[in-house]
């Protein structure tokens, strides 16, 4: 318990430092926020265009589709808020030896490199998908009960664990292949597939998103939970994938550190 409190305090320090820093650069802040907002609006337009020529994508009608999209963006934005700056800094840590000082600190190094930076811009970027999420709950007349709220939050946490773990694992390749710029983009590109409901993925793609990079149910399970729908197979797959992916990320981090060569 003492350890958890210590890490929470430490994280608050990280967040405070990052907020102070981001507020120093107002133009950057405004431009980045505008860019995230624009991307969100483009996706909605994109969905509208698709639904003009189809009644449903998979089993989702237009309003259910927008609910699904809002959950996708909630996970994406929360993930960005916690990890984007950290994972985009990864090449500097490994290729330029900036990991050196971190490895001398009496703090878990995986915690340090994963959560050192916090994106204030993403915190503000949560509001547009959150508004859409609430709007869709009202339109679809979904009753909010303590059970579906708690399950939704638990599954969001589970999905974010998978999201974090695989994004983190992707970056660990740098320990073995020293120079790949913007490696973190690779996971983000895969993740973007999840803006579409899982039903549309069949064959090799379905196998890939279930067996290799198990992110297929990361958006659908929380979206169904808030609608009082439970697919036990998908829930089991999500929970197992989150536990295993976190474990693998931990093991690979430890192995990666043994390969870390720093710089002269």
């Amino acid at each position: 318990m003492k350890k958890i409190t210590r890490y929470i305090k430490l994280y608050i320090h990280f967040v405070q430092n990052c907020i102070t820093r981001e507020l120093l650069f107002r133009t950057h802040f405004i431009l980045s926020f505008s860019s995230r907002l624009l991307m969100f609006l483009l996706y909605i337009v994109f969905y509208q265009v698709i639904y003009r020529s189809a009644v449903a994508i998979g089993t989702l009608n237009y309003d259910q589709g927008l609910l699904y999209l809002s959950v996708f963006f909630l996970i994406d934005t929360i993930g960005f808020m916690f990890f984007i700056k950290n994972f985009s800094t990864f090449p500097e840590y490994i290729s330029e030896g900036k990991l050196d000082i971190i490895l001398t600190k009496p703090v878990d190094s995986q915690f340090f490199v994963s959560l050192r930076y916090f994106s204030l811009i993403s915190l503000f970027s949560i509001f547009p998908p959150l508004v859409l999420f609430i709007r869709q709950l009202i339109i679809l007349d979904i009753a909010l009960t303590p059970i579906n709220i708690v399950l939704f939050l638990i599954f969001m946490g589970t999905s974010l664990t998978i999201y974090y773990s695989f994004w983190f694992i992707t970056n660990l390749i740098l320990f073995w292949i020293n120079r790949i710029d913007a490696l973190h983009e690779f996971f983000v590109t895969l993740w973007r597939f999840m803006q579409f409901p899982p039903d549309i993925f069949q064959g090799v793609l379905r196998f890939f998103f279930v067996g290799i990079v198990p992110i297929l149910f990361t958006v659908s399970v929380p979206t169904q939970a808030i609608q009082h729908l439970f697919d036990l197979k998908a829930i089991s797959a999500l929970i197992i994938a989150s536990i295993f992916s976190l474990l693998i990320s931990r093991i690979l981090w430890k192995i990666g550190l043994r390969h870390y060569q720093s710089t002269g």
Partner: protein
Amino acid sequence: MKPIISIKNLVKQYSYYKKQPGLLGSIKSLFHREKLYVEAVKGISFEIQPGEFVGFVGPNGAGKTTTLKMLSGILYPTSGDVDVLNHKPFEREPEFQKQFALVMGQKNQLWWDLPAIESFLLNKAIYEIPDALFKKNLDELSELLDIKDILDVQVRKLSLGQRMKCELVAALLHSPKVLFLDEPTIGLDVISQNAIREFLKAYNKEKGATIILTSHYMQDIRRLCDRVIIIDHGQLLYDGTYDALHTQYSDSKTVEFTLANRVDAKEIEVFGKILSQKDRTFSIKIPREKTAEITGKILEKFQVDDIVIHERDIEEIIEEIFTDKKMRD
């Protein structure tokens, strides 16, 4: 006394891929790459006692920084034993990490866009420094390094010297027992170099901290370190006191004297090789063991206005050690 740092037959091997020259070579390497290995540290051994101030000297690529990184747990040794503060550094136990600090002249831990005080407060949380101790250490260190006025200034706006002072404060707030310093004065002007040296000297004396310092500036080593460890190509060449380095490797001294009257250079040559002559002032190289005898004869034969005996410059000696080794290799 049990050593605070002990390494035995320490080896570090790096792997890298051979790069063939030119564009064609780069394209070929996409399909086939030859993996090569280089030994940065080749089985060095030494022990350091608590409170020692040790200079770690060697040319670029000698293995100094690699050794420091193994001592601080950043790198895993390929083989050999390493023990620091009764811990295996590569296990990175928090109890160990709270007892040492590493300062690297070319890498920083301060948050670039924030005032240094924010990084200090973060370190307070990282090292779990009690409020009273943090305040005491911060007051003391910022007073000693004269940075009280710049604690609230963004790090990016500080001069290199001021930044290094802040880096030192950040590293020392948790009162480490062992301090690894890798080129802490690199790029600094003479005034800042002196300020850092004075501080380190006082810190070592007052706190009894064990310090290992690597530096390209022999002034740093000369003024701070009682003991010098010289390595080259990953091998230990010398481990002993700074003074003994002269005795062991320098068989000569320089005598500089000014005569009251003009004298022909030939009369001086009989005492030793003339290194320089300016008017009535001569500088000659004499055998170390004959210093007393020769200076006695000079004083006896000539009317001398002034006479000074110099040890050979340490830079020259070290350069000679490296050159001798290269020739032997």
